[in-house]
């Protein structure tokens, strides 16, 4: 049994009286690619929002490598090693591609440089800038975005914007990467390529991936294990095959 990276215990949130998510238990093991699926409105993105500190859970808790991160600030969680992408792409549209990634490196403890060293152009400034640029280029190279690094990010085609978002998330050197519908809007070729990339970055950066996806081909092709959500609660979980063949799951998806 490998080490558990993320442990979610009895997680839940109420919006007013509405229980959007309740009693969710998930354990994600090291270097796993774990899928979170379910019909629209099942609470998948809400779980992501809780895991990244956007929402504060009203019950339960979650821990990364044993450290309880429930209710911590977004920045603290990001520093602790959870990075995410968004369902609807959120890039810094008026900045070049490389700068988008460099913003991800902003909080890197090895690339510290106070405002004053920048203001007075002390040697630290030049050193960190150079290191940042190099690191950003390395990350972009993995995603085949090096050529476009000086284009505005909003001018990239859709598939590349999705990739850039992943690249930016990776720049924060996460241990757990949350991908919110990474394959949405991609054609089969791009999807296949994305699957390759996700596997590649998992191995290269030694990270664990938790992803939300609707594309069943993608899910069954890449996920090791799944949790199926419906109406904010766990419907089924297990290996991808088990979960997808669960009669409850089929009923929830197809109706009946």
């Amino acid at each position, binding site marked *: 049994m490998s080490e558990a990276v993320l442990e979610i215990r009895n997680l839940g949130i109420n919006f007013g009286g509405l229980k959007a998510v309740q009693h969710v238990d998930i354990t994600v093991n090291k270097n796993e690619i774990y899928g979170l699926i379910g019909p629209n409105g099942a609470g998948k993105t809400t779980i992501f929002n809780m895991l990244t500190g*956007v929402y504060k859970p009203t019950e339960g808790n979650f821990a990364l490598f044993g450290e309880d991160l429930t209710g911590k600030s977004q920045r603290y969680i990001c520093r602790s090693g959870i990075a995410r992408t968004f369902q609807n792409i959120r890039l810094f549209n008026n900045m070049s591609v490389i700068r988008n990634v460099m913003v991800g490196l902003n909080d890197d403890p090895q690339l510290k440089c106070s405002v004053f060293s920048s203001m007075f152009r002390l040697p630290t400034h030049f050193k960190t800038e150079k290191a940042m640029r190099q690191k950003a280029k390395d990350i972009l190279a993995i995603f085949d975005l090096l050529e476009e690094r000086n284009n505005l990010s909003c001018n990239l085609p859709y598939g590349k914007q999705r990739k850039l978002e992943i690249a930016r998330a990776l720049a924060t050197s996460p241990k757990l990467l949350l991908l919110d519908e990474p394959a949405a809007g991609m054609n089969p070729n791009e999807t296949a390529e994305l699957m390759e990339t996700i596997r590649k970055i998992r191995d290269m950066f030694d990270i664990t991936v938790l992803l939300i996806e609707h594309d069943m081909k993608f899910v069954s092709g890449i996920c090791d294990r799944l949790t199926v959500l419906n109406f904010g609660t766990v419907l089924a979980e297990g290996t991808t095959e088990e979960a997808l063949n669960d009669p409850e799951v089929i009923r929830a998806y197809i109706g009946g």
Partner: protein
Amino acid sequence: MEQIITTIINGLSLGGVYALIALGYTMVYGIAKMLNFAHGDIIMVGGYTIFVFMNATGNPIIAAIFAAVVCVILGASMEKLAYKPLRGASPLAVLITAIGVSYLLQSLSQIIFGPTPKTVIVADLGVTKIGNVTISNSSVLTLILTVIIMIALTLFIKMSKTGRAMLAVSEDRDAAKIMGVNVNGIITITFVIGAFLAAVASLFYLLKYPSISNTMGSMPGIKAFTAAVIGGIGSIPGAMLGGLLLGVIECIFNSFSEIAPYTDAIEFGILIVLLLIRPNGILGKKKREKV
């Protein structure tokens, strides 16, 4: 004791004026989702119109009618010329344009009427004495008319088709559009109603302070915005409540000579603190950030 009653009644009537202006802010904010910085200056335009027609005819009712017409035209054209092209653009752009419009109106009126304030006595309604309490009739009239207007406005929004369309647009512009609501038309109507209320407010304001200058609108404008925030921006009863509350507070502070010079500062302080601790005001709805 008599003093207190007089102060409160004065405060309520001043609050009524603020409430009328605040209604304009709140409706425009709720429906067009923008802060109309030039709203206060509509009062100023109303004031000058009243001044012109009072001098020409000497009849306050005719002057008031003309003020209403001019303000309504101004409100509608402001929306059509300056704000409509920016629909869908960044809020920062809309805000800066609104500031520009406000500045333009102030400068234009200064060039037409000169920098020295004009004085106009709209009507002298005298005072009523009840026991030892002296109340000016104009205050009472302001209060009564304000309440009537507010009730009428609430009924209009609740009952009429247009009013319900306004509610729909404020709730979700895109959905309203899909349901066949003429969103642009509704926004224009909102501006027109706001401008009309501002014209009425300018009449009442002149009854209290009979001096017109090109910046006369900005102070009541900001205060009315404060009132709208106190009540919860986007909420019509909130604007009324906030306006009345602010008016009373202002009159109470002004009655102490040591505090009086700082009244404005205190009101702005209230605004800042309120925005910080309860930005949704007393009756406002909360909005959630979506991720």
